[in-house]
């Protein structure tokens, strides 16, 4: 006599393909075949062995403290019982399927409910494992496909002629958040274990600026790449290679300096700009612009920056800083003027930068004042969440963790930015 149990994670009973961030994950368990058992059926939900993976914790309700295992009593007639999986902050998975859940039924592991998952978190590029790095580079090179791949769409979205959609106004941060998410989802369609890494430009990053990763500056126009590096076949605009060298600083020992009278702000200096969005948004100048200008090459102008793969890691760090600022100041409600510019504030807010505006190019709107063409529409879908939608608005990028509504969860997180429930929020997706 051994009942059969089914676990559903975010509505899916699949035993693989689950990707978590730091947000708690809503789940249910139910008896599908009582096999003569009497009510209630006692089960225990717990971690699969995770020596190389991310530990998970469990709780019956949001108000409870999570634990390594969770005893539950299930209705023998099959009514579902809710519980939550709570990933452990700063314990991300390094490999796909390296996190997992098992269910003990009647004192034995129920093999049919062994579920593999990944706590998929954007990492600091300089701390990635060799395997993580190589998967990322392989996926990125595949998306580029020697210049013939879909990466060209991303390059064509970030030009002087499209600059007003993404720069110089309040939507700078939301637009680039959507841009990165779109790219990340394309990479995950190639390899679902990949996330975008970020370049902490206020710290030395010798592992990133290596011939085996993003290339080491040599003093010539191009960084040194190992022949086996997938980026060795990088092509944009029909031109092979990556054009980048430092402005003289040592990328093996130093952080990006910016310029003598316009240095790159550190993380603390950036977060110290102020607790109101209008104060924080000036980070578009420094650290953002100052980090760009720390190089000679494609990355030092809006028109050509997207030709360099480093550009996406630079912007991932800009987005991480915004995410960290949001957590520090609890800024997730886009309707709050401290979280985002209220419409009509800050001079003339251009179309595409107001909270309720859809963003180009995903909205496919072309013609003045938008650019004449839209290289990508809609935004790439995700198998784990419907947010931020095919045609995201500026406001849809703000509550990316789903603090205010589970429907807002965009499915990404950073290794040093926790999920912490908003007072009065939903406690995650």
């Amino acid at each position, binding site marked *: 006599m051994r009942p059969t149990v089914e676990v559903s994670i975010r509505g899916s009973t699949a035993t693989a393909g689950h990707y978590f961030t730091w947000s708690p994950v809503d789940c249910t368990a139910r008896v599908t075949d009582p096999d003569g058992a009497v009510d209630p059926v006692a089960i225990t939900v717990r971690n699969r062995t995770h020596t190389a993976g991310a530990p998970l914790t469990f709780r019956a309700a949001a108000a409870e403290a999570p634990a390594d295992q969770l005893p539950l009593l299930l209705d023998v007639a099959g009514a579902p019982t809710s519980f939550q999986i709570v990933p452990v902050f700063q314990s991300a998975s390094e490999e796909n399927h390296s996190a997992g859940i098992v269910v003990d039924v009647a004192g034995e592991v129920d093999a049919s409910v062994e579920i593999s998952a990944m706590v998929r978190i954007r990492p600091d590029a300089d701390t990635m494992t060799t395997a993580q790095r190589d998967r990322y580079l392989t996926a990125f090179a595949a998306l580029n496909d020697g210049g013939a791949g879909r990466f060209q769409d991303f390059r064509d979205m970030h030009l002087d002629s499209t600059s007003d959609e993404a720069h110089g106004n309040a939507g700078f941060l939301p637009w680039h958040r959507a841009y990165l998410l779109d790219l990340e989802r394309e990479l995950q369609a190639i390899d679902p274990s990949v996330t975008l890494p970020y370049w902490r430009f206020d710290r030395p990053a010798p592992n990133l600026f290596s011939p085996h990763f993003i290339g080491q500056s040599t003093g010539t126009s191009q960084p040194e790449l190992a022949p086996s590096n997938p980026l060795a*076949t990088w092509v944009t605009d029909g031109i*092979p290679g990556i054009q980048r060298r430092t402005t003289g600083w040592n990328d093996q020992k130093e952080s990006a300096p910016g310029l003598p009278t316009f240095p790159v702000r550190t993380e603390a200096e950036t977060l110290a700009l102020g607790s109101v969005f209008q104060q924080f948004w000036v980070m578009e100048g420094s650290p953002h612009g100052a980090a760009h*200008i720390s190089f000679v090459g494609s990355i030092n102008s809006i028109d050509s920056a997207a030709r360099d793969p480093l550009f996406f890691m630079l912007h991932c760090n800009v987005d991480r800083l915004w995410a960290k600022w949001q957590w520090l100041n609890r800024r997730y409600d886009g309707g709050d003027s401290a979280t985002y510019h209220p419409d009509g504030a800050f001079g003339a807010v251009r179309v595409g930068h107001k909270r309720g505006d859809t963003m180009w190019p995903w909205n496919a709107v072309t013609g003045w004042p938008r650019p004449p063409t839209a290289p990508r529409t809609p935004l790439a879908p995700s198998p784990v969440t419907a947010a931020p939608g095919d045609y995201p608005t500026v406001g849809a990028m703000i509550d990316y963790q789903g603090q205010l509504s589970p429907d807002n969860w965009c499915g990404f997180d950073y290794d040093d930015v926790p999920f912490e429930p908003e007072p009065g929020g939903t406690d995650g997706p």
Partner: protein
Amino acid sequence: MDLDDYRRQLEADVGAAAPPAGDLADAMATLADRSGPVADRVEAARLVNMRAHERPDTFGLLVDILGDGGDATDVRLAALDGIEVHQFGSSALKEQRAELTVALKRAMEADDPDLRERAIDMLARGRDVDVQRQLIDGLRDRTAAITTPQRSVELLGYDLKADHYDVLKDVVAGHEDAETRREALRLLAADAESEALIETVVRDKDEEAAVRDTGAAALQAVAPEQFEVVAYDIVADDNDYDEIKASVLTKLTQQGSTTSIPAEAAAQLDTIQNERADGEPLKEAARRHIEQQDN
């Protein structure tokens, strides 16, 4: 990790990183005062640059100083710092584009090489046709050069046009500096009409290995199918060098070849596999290529 502790630590770090103190209006006045000490004005520029977003008129001041040939070089460089960074975003600076172009062209006439080079770079990035013309003239006539040949080629790469390809072909065909030729080869990959010239470089055993390698990357970008033909010819050639053979094999493997390995190249790959020592780059490249083909 205790999130309360984590938050407290971050709050302490942020609290210790207060924004620079100082009055923006005072700093602008100090920066604008041509009679003031240079060090004071540069220090004022630091504050003005970091807070320029607060007052759109700061950009007019920065542009004025940059374009003032009589002002101190260090102050002009500081003004250029602010302009370069705020190019990433400032709509107020965009509105001064015409004045900025004039100021940058004045900076090109400065004695200071750093100021000159940065002004040239910024104009080239902005697709300034006068600067493009000067770069081309400098490549054709060394006495007219406004920067080094390699840098000239790089800067033309910000905005490739049909007439740029002509000078780039001349550089590949006749320039003495290998790095400059490599830069030109890379850019010619965007020009279908340069395929034959690039192929000639790749096949030329008298060329430097690095130049052939760059040419191979360019040929693969401009004509992937022809690159495969050339690459397998190189592999099959008993008299060609290991370095270029390993390079083209790696490129074929990474990009994926569309044809099966020709018989002569296949025979050479077998020979390499059988006769070369483990760990030799050519043997490793051959092994990886055969594995990829088998898959």
